[in-house]
């Protein structure tokens, strides 16, 4: 398994190659991309801030749970930090599994849990202002 929080541009192909295995007939990759519209506002850029040591720990725990629940073969998760303009990739999640259903279901479960629990925040700069976007309050424990 592979986990990374980095200010550098993410390479989705690297994530794919990290999870590609002879016993896995399916490789699924998800990209989170900075989009141009949010809450009816025109977005200019996002600034991502992480608690990096904890984020990689949370990635590891959720990946281990996803492997156990969905019989995934391998998982790679990367999250970028710093200032990202519209169109840049902020999140890469790649999973492999023997058959496609496990990869689709496990990949969706993993991305949803990451959004709830990763200690990563974003500040949106839009036409007319800027604001910290506060989403999910992670469950305790």
């Amino acid at each position, binding site marked *: 398994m592979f986990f990374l929080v980095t200010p550098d541009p993410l390479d989705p192909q690297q994530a794919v190659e990290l999870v590609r295995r002879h016993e896995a007939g399916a490789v699924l990759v998800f990209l989170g991309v900075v989009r141009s519209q949010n809450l009816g506002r025109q977005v200019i850029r996002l600034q991502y801030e*992480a608690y990096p040591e904890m984020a990689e720990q949370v990635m590891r725990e959720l990946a281990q749970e996803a492997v156990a629940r969905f019989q995934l073969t391998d998982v790679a998760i990367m999250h970028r930090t710093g200032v990202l303009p519209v169109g840049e990739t902020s999140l890469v999640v790649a999973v492999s599994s023997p058959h496609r259903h496990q990869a689709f279901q496990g990949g969706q479960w993993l991305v949803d849990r990451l959004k709830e629990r990763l200690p990563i*925040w974003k500040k949106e700069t839009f036409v007319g202002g800027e604001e910290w976007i506060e989403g*999910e309050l992670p469950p305790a424990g």
Partner: protein
Amino acid sequence: MKVKVRLFARLRELAGTSEMEVEIGEGMPVGEVFELVQARIPCLAGQQLPVAFAVNARYVAPDHPVGPGDEVAIIPPVSGGSGVLPGHP
């Protein structure tokens, strides 16, 4: 004893610092440690803020006791990735 408290995102900006050292009694619940932090940030004092807590990079409940050498982090609502907010289209 002294503990290190890390602050992120909006809380970090309001506090004007990403890290604070707080004097606490050993075993103080992390929720009470945050009350001490709040008291030192004038614009946050007395407010009910939606935050979660981490000790040594793991999520814990507000009653989790803080011991010597622990690293406390105050976790505002998270927003990684790039998807929509809950409750918004």
